[in-house]
């Protein structure tokens, strides 16, 4: 079952999705297997042996009528270091060319704003980031790059993302971070949650390499501002 709140990338729609997700988790209706919050809709997977569509619709309507939690609890703010020098910024020249900007202008625009994690998906732990400045809105490549490495910082359309594992992608690589959104051996393998805020901080190659040598814990304590 999919509960749609609208058809746009907008904070209020995403907040409603996250609010319903939280309310549903707290209400614990029978038969729910899992939920998938996305930009503007909540996918609810359920077991028909334990509940019914009609029953669930009525639960959801009840929660919506009572009002969703306004505050999204427990969001974190991240300051993500990334390097945007060769060989880590494959598509920076093309982005600059297409947008009629210098490479430095692209990066300073990119790092000038705070992004919101709208959803996590496609690949393990991959955050979809909204808030990309208008001047960087760019249509996807016609031919996807078959292998984008983990840690790539990318933009596509009106969004940005941080690549967790090798993926094919038609987005543009602006740089590379030593952070990994998906760390399967950690107790909590996923870095980002919907509602989290992300800022990017440009570092040089030397700093990137130093950070990449840090242990996961040390790196995380540096980049996490709050949760």
């Amino acid at each position, binding site marked *: 079952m*999919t509960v*749609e709140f609208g*058809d*746009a*990338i907008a904070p209020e729609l995403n907040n409603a999705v996250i609010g319903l997700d939280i309310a549903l988790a707290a209400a614990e209706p029978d038969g729910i*297997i*899992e*939920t*998938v*919050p*996305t*930009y*503007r*809709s*909540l*996918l609810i*997977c359920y077991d*028909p*042996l334990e509940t*019914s*569509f009609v029953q669930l619709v009525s639960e959801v309507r009840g929660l919506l009528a009572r009002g969703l939690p306004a505050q999204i609890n427990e969001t974190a703010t991240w300051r993500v270091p990334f390097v945007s020098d060769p060989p880590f910024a494959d598509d920076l020249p093309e982005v600059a060319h297409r947008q009629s900007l210098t490479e430095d202008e692209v990066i300073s625009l990119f790092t000038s704003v705070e992004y919101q994690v709208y*959803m*996590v*998906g*496609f*690949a*393990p*732990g*991959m955050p*979809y980031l909204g808030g990309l400045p208008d001047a960087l809105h760019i249509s996807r490549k016609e031919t996807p790059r078959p292998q984008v490495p983990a840690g790539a910082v990318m933009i596509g359309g009106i969004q940005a993302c941080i690549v*967790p*594992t090798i*993926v094919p992608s038609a987005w543009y690589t602006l740089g590379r971070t030593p952070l990994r959104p*998906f760390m*399967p051996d950690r107790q909590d*393998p*996923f870095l980002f949650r919907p509602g989290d805020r992300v800022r990017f901080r440009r570092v040089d190659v030397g700093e990137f390499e130093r950070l990449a040598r840090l242990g996961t814990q040390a790196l995380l304590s540096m980049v996490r501002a709050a949760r």
Partner: protein
Amino acid sequence: MIGALIAIAPGPYVTIQDQGRRGWRRFGIAVAGAMDLDSLALANALVANPPYAAALEFAHVGGTWEIATKACRIAITGGSFEVWADGVALAPWRSHTLRYGQRLVIGGARDAVWGYLAIAGSFDIMPRLGSSATHIRSALGGINGCRLREGDALPLRAARLFVGAERQVAPPSRPPGPLRLVLGPQQEFFTPETVEAFLASTYRVTHRGDRMGMWLEGPKIAHARGYNVLSDGLVPGCVQVPGAGQPVVLLMDCQTVGGYPKLGTIITADLPRFAQIRPGGEVTFTAIDIEAAHQAYRHHHNMLTRTAQLIVDVPGT
């Protein structure tokens, strides 16, 4: 160590699968799990394992395996796979006891794509995120999240000592007929005429497919308002229609979110049957409502329970 099952020359696409991962889709982790969960459950039932214990899943051909434990019970299901142990033919859909050093050769089947080899006690491998199911793109499950390769030794867990007759079962009954799907959730991207034409058409299963999804080929499906949806949640069974108008049916390894319009979702009860259709096979669809889909799910569940109860001793063993 209790022993192992050794991959001498595994088929080209052999992975360890179970019921799949639940509860991690919100973080981008695919469900994975057996493409034909019914056959997995029956293979396990034949060797007295829990229904969704980890087993080998192979596409088309299983390959050659060696038993490196004193004795073990195995069962192969999924289709009429040709199986030999040291050159002696073994029947699928029943258990067999094999001894140390025996070589098991699993060939193909005319009536299936996916086969399952369950072994009594199952494999002694560490679950990842609650499941042993292999998901190659996430590098999770099985042996390092990979396809099984020549030389892999799969450690076995001790089975309850299994003496007595071998067991057999009839394959689950899968009446032919159109695949049932529930329309939506992006019906507004297709005109009613388009949906009607889709339901009246025959599509062919192509060679372009894997555990993630299967491309169909047939009359082009026209989009009423483009083909870019704001990415939202996906489940196995979703029928996505990308730009070219040929449908793709998503399967167990499917990505968690996607941006192509979804015409409908094949019901859970019909997914194993769909997954087992070989390339070149033809399919048609019929639309049912959500209540009918749930009824079919309950019916399928009961059927499977009954089938498992129909496991009987093989006379003379």
